[in-house]
């Protein structure tokens, strides 16, 4: 039901119109979207925590802006002299599929880090980092900023 309204509102906003024709068309498309989604994925119940979600979005935006500047410096050759890029294995606590998917989106959308591979058996994710200066600090940041909040939202 919630997905139906999100899709309908998205359609109306994209078309900048609340004409009856667009509402009908949007409702049809939203219904089709809901039916397809139901076949794709068994319902994943996220807890309703709008404040936490907003906080997470704010953190993600701040981190993305910060890493944009960091990567821009590296591209321009103004970064650290001894830059070492490499893979990082990160043991996770979060197991919820939707939470993992969100974490993958966040990490990949942040310039300088990229989600490479997830091992479900060991619950370890491999990440490629452009500037692997301080591994421990990066892991701490991820755990404190994202993993804890994602677990509160999804688990």
């Amino acid at each position, binding site marked *: 039901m919630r997905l139906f309204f999100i899709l309908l509102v*998205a359609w109306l*906003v*994209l078309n*900048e119109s609340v004409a009856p024709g667009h509402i009908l068309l949007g409702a049809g498309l939203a219904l089709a979207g809901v039916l397809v989604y139901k076949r794709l994925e068994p319902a994943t119940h996220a807890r309703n925590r709008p404040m936490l979600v907003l906080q997470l979005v704010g953190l993600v935006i701040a981190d*993305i*802006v910060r890493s*944009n500047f960091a*990567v*821009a410096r*590296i*591209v*321009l050759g103004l970064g650290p002299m001894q830059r070492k*890029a490499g893979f990082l294995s990160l043991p996770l606590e979060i197991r919820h599929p939707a939470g993992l998917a969100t974490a*993958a*989106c966040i990490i*990949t*959308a*942040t*310039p*300088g*880090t*990229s*989600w*490479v*591979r997830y091992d479900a058996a060991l619950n370890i994710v491999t990440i*490629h980092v*452009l500037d692997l200066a301080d591994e421990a600090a990066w892991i701490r940041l991820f755990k404190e900023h994202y993993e804890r909040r994602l677990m509160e939202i999804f688990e």
Partner: protein
Amino acid sequence: MSAASAFAAVLVILGALLAFLGSLGLLRMRTFYERIHPPTMGTTLGTGLILAASMIHFTALEGRPVVHEILLGGLMTFTTPVTYMLLVRAARRREHHADDGSDD
């Protein structure tokens, strides 16, 4: 030119600059895995600045709030990682095959 349009112009240029730096990074980085990082600047903050400029410009021009760019930003953020992950997994798979012929 109104103040809003001037501000929007500055945001467009900054966004375009980030997209350019991303492309430059694609050229300058040496390995495949390093190369996937810089273009993310264009798809995140670069896109964000250009969308913000679009919102400011058209809100001022049409005298009503124009905000559907927020949706575009959201859709970009959710869809680009999928492409990146596919590319990285393909690269890893190829590497593993080259190493020992085993599957990832």
